[in-house]
Every structure is written in structure tokens, then in C-alpha cells.
């Protein structure tokens, strides 16, 4: 464990040094990778226990829009707006997860209920077009570098912020694994009735991990908007982005701490390189390959890229791992 911790610290320092060397383009990609890694990690925090949500766009959308709207219309600083949006996302998660847990909506049904939830938030954003700008999206009022407005035009500044948030997401994952909660959730995933019969509080365990996941996702959405200074319903809410979150996390490996991060690295590197290789004349080529790969992953590598590598390493003698 301590060896992993040291490795983590070393890696973090190395990553923090990147802005000194990198170009704006690479920094932009790096910020995107870090923020998406954070969101995918937030999803996998609950997804790894069989709570497969196809509606995380709902929370991402709340995080994306609420602080920006509060800032534009009332001048409320994101320092208040973001906590408000995080609380709203957690409240929405509670409103759905509590009854869903009560009546044991699981598997297909859980996936489809969350899918509908994502649609509701996306459609509400579009329907309120007078204040949200509808499908065209909106831009938070820009004021240049400002801690009060949480706006950092320089990419290197935002890079450090994204790095801190990404590490915080990993820390939450590790913190959850330290207690009995993770093992309880694994038991619930195996057999809910059996888990309840040995005294596991199914409701409390499921709600806790769901609310944390929703809250972190909203935070991720808010930071995306602070970074891009633009938000539209398609990129932060709705079916498309909800599925993107699920698939990137699965591709990377949702059962491993760094799996969602690998997922973000993999998907963004793939998209960018295919975009550079094919150019914009082949819109869709990247996603065609991506979609085909996803199907192959789920069939042949259900534990994702990192999960697959870990399984390979585990097969070797223990001495090799040290």
C-alpha cells in the first residue's frame, strides 16, 4: 500500500511539472484528460458495484449550468454556485436512488430509469431556452483571471486545478475502499437479500456511494464550464454524454483505481490521433472505430484495459511484482 502511495506521489509531481514544458495544445488535451478522468472516476465509484447509471449526464448538466446561470444572472461567485449545484445534484440523486433502492430497481430497470433521468435534465435545459440559451448553449460572463469568478484563462493555471481535482477524486475512491463500505457493496452486488440478512444496511451503503458519485460528477461538470467558458446541453447532458461516461470508464477498467483515467487517456488519445490522421473530412471515423472497439472490449475484456493488464500481471509469479 505504502509503495503504491509513494508511486502515486512521484507520479503526481511528475505530472505537475508538465505545464513548464508543454505547448498550449498539449495542455488543452491534458486538462481534458484530467477532467474527464475525474468524471469517469466519479461514475465508476458506483458503477463498479453494479450500480450502472446511464444518466450521469443529469448531474454533469446540473454542475455545468447552475453555477454559470447564477454567475450570469445574479453575479453569484462559483465558490457558492458550485457547492449549490453539487448539493442539487446530490438531492436529485437522493430523490431517485432512495425509492429505487426501496423497491429494488436493479439491472436493466436501474439503467433505464437513470437513462430517463438524464433525458429529463437535458430536456429541461433545452426547454428553458430563455435563460439557458437552449441547444445553442451559453457562455459564462468572462472577467479574465479571477479567483472570485474562478476563471483562469491561462491553460497552465487550469491544468494545476484540474490535477488537484483529479487526485481528490482518486482519494475519495481510496477512502471508500478503506472502510467496510466497499466490501458491503460488493456483497450487495453479489446477492442483495443475502447481504441484508447478514446485517448490511443496503439502503445506507447504496445511497452513500450514489450521492458521492453524483456530487463529484456535478463538480466535474462545473469545472468543465469554468475551463471551456461555454456550455451546451449536448456536451454536458443527455444520452450521448451519459453513454460516453459509461463506456470510457468500462474501456479503461471500472474496477481499478486508475481504470477510468486510462479510459479517458485512451478515448481522448484515440479521438485526437484519428482526428489528426483523418482530418475533419472524415467526421465520424473516430467514433466508428471507437464504437467497434467498445463492443470488442465488452466481449473480450470486460474488466477494461487496466483490468486486463492487472489480470495478466497477477498470473505471473509473485516475486516479479516485488
Amino acid at each position, binding site marked *: 500500500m505504502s509503495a503504491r502511495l509513494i508511486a502515486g506521489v512521484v507520479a503526481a509531481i511528475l505530472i505537475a511539472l508538465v505545464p513548464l514544458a508543454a505547448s498550449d495544445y498539449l495542455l488543452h488535451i491534458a486538462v481534458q484528460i484530467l477532467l474527464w478522468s475525474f468524471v469517469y472516476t466519479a461514475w465508476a465509484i458506483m458503477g463498479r458495484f453494479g450500480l450502472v447509471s446511464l444518466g450521469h449526464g443529469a448531474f454533469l448538466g446540473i454542475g455545468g449550468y447552475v453555477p454559470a446561470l447564477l454567475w450570469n444572472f445574479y453575479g453569484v461567485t462559483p465558490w457558492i454556485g458550485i457547492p449549490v449545484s453539487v448539493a442539487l445534484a446530490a438531492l436529485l440523486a437522493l430523490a431517485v436512488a432512495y425509492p429505487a433502492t426501496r423497491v429494488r430497481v436493479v439491472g436493466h430497470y436501474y439503467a433505464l430509469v437513470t437513462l430517463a*433521468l438524464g*433525458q429529463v435534465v437535458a430536456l429541461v435545459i433545452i426547454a428553458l431556452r430563455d435563460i439557458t440559451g437552449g441547444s445553442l448553449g451559453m457562455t459564462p460572463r468572462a472577467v479574465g483571471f479571477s479567483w472570485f469568478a474562478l476563471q483562469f484563462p491561462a491553460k497552465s493555471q487550469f491544468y494545476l486545478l484540474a490535477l488537484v481535482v483529479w487526485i481528490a477524486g482518486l482519494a475519495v475512491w481510496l477512502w471508500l475502499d478503506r472502510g467496510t463500505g466497499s466490501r458491503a457493496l460488493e456483497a450487495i452486488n453479489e446477492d442483495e437479500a443475502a447481504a441484508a440478512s447478514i446485517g448490511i444496511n443496503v439502503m445506507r451503503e447504496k445511497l452513500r456511494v450514489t450521492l458521492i458519485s453524483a456530487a463529484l460528477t456535478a463538480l466535474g461538470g462545473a469545472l468543465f464550464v469554468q475551463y471551456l467558458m461555454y456550455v451546451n446541453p449536448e456536451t454536458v447532458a443527455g444520452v*450521448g454524454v451519459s453513454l460516453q461516461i459509461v463506456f470510457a470508464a468500462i474501456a479503461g477498467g471500472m474496477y481499478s483505481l486508475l481504470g477510468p483515467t486510462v479510459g479517458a487517456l485512451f478515448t481522448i488519445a484515440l479521438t485526437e490521433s484519428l482526428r489528426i490522421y483523418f482530418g475533419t473530412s472524415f467526421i465520424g471515423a473516430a467514433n466508428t472505430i*471507437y464504437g467497434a472497439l*467498445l463492443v470488442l472490449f465488452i466481449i473480450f475484456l470486460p474488466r477494461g484495459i487496466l483490468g486486463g493488464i492487472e489480470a495478466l500481471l497477477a498470473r505471473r509469479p509473485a516475486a516479479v511484482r516485488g
Partner: protein
Amino acid sequence: MDIFLLEAVINGILLGGVLALLALGLNLIFGVIDVVWIAYAELVMSGMYAVYWLTNAQGWPVLLACAAAILFVALLGVLVHLLIIQPILGSAPINQLLATGGLLFFLQSLATLLFGTDFRNLGVRLPIIELGDIFISFARLLAFVVALLGAAALYLFLSRTFLGTAIRAVAQDRDIMGLMGVDQRRIYLITSAIGGGLAGLAACLLLLQYDVHPFIGLTFGPITFMICVLGGLGNMIGGFVAAFVISQIIAVTGYYLSIEASYVLAFVVFIVLILIRPQGLFSK
């Protein structure tokens, strides 16, 4: 009664027919094979493009193109089963759902690659029927009638033929039917072909009324899943009734408020109903 409201209600009923057809195909697959094809609406989209391409680029007559599209999507259904579902039939059901989710991305992007993101349509304009002060689009009426005929044909097939009986038997008890000498693999393939064919038929009917674009599946896909779940996944009659309930909610709310509000309400109703009755509205 307000004449415009009446028109909205009639349009709702007509929309319900096509939604019911979509729900039937999805329900058949769920009931028999026990998987959710999350990319079902994208199969419909593929069928719409097939009709468009055959008529506009190849100059086929519309009816012939429709027949070809139905066969094409039926074939796609078989491929989905053979290539995606069959290898992971033994793993957790959610994996099968997610694997077809990968297919969703694949089909969407492939359509973008082949046809671009422009909206395309048949270029056929069907007349508007006037009934007193009410205007009804002939395309919608035709779609409604054909959808009901398709549903009736499926019902007759499942209840009156030997093969249909075998399919229903497998839906009721997979393991026993294996022991009774029913070839499950064959039944699954036939079911997938029928499910695909129904998606192809729906595609032809939808193309009469709507433009096709690569992301059209996202607009009616979610609503189709809602309908299936409300009716009870696998329960075809329930799904049929639910299609009309949902389409009325959409049509009437759309009349009073806005299109988005009507879909928001439909989804909220869905979420609330599922949390009250998770086994579906019409299950015993």
C-alpha cells in the same frame, strides 16, 4: 371539445401506433432472449437510411426499397445476435446491454461517415386529409394502419404457427424447452431476425413522416425503452397499451405547453411509475 385538442389527441393515437410497433420488436427480443438492445433505435435509423439511399441514390421504387430495407434490418438483427449477443450470452445482462451500446456509437458514426450530418428525407409528399376542421397527415394515418397490421401479423404468427409457439415457449422457460428438443440457437436467431424486421418496418413508416439524420435514434430511442419498461419488459400487450398512454401524454402536453415539456413529463411519469411499480404497469 376544443378542435385543436382533438387534433392533438388524434395525432397522439397515430404516433402511438408506430411507437407500439417499435416497442413490440424490442419486447420480443427481451422476452425471448432476455437482452436489451440499447441500439434498437439505431437499427431503425439504419433502415431509414437504407430506404433513403435505395430510392434517392439508386432510383428504386419506394415500396421495393421498403421491402429491401426490412430484409436489411432483419439481417442486421441476426448479425447483432451472432456477433455481439451470442458470445456473451452467459455473462451479466448489463454487459449485453452495454455491448449493444457500443453498437449504438458504431452505427451513429458510420451513418455520419457515409451520409454526413444533414437531414435527409424521401422527397415524397403525401396529401393531408381534411375531416371537417381537423387536418390529419396521410403519412401518419398510413403509418398507424401499417403498424397495427404489423402488430396483428406478429400476434398471429406467435399464436397460430408452430414456430411462434416455440418462440413463446422459450420465452416462458428457456431451460425446459432445451430439454424438449427445441434448438435455442435457432429460435434466438429467428427472434432476432423478426425483431430486426420490425425495426425495418418502423423505419419505413418513420421515414414517411420524419427526416433521417445520424442522431435520430436518440430522439425516439429512449421513449421506446420507457414504453417497454412501463408495459413490463417482455410483456407485449402491456407494451402495446403503454405506447398509446405515452403518446397521448406527449401529444396532449405538447399541445398545452411545448414539445420539450411533453417529453419531460413523459419521462418523469415513467420514472415515478417505475419507482412505484417496478415490474411494469400491466404485469400480474
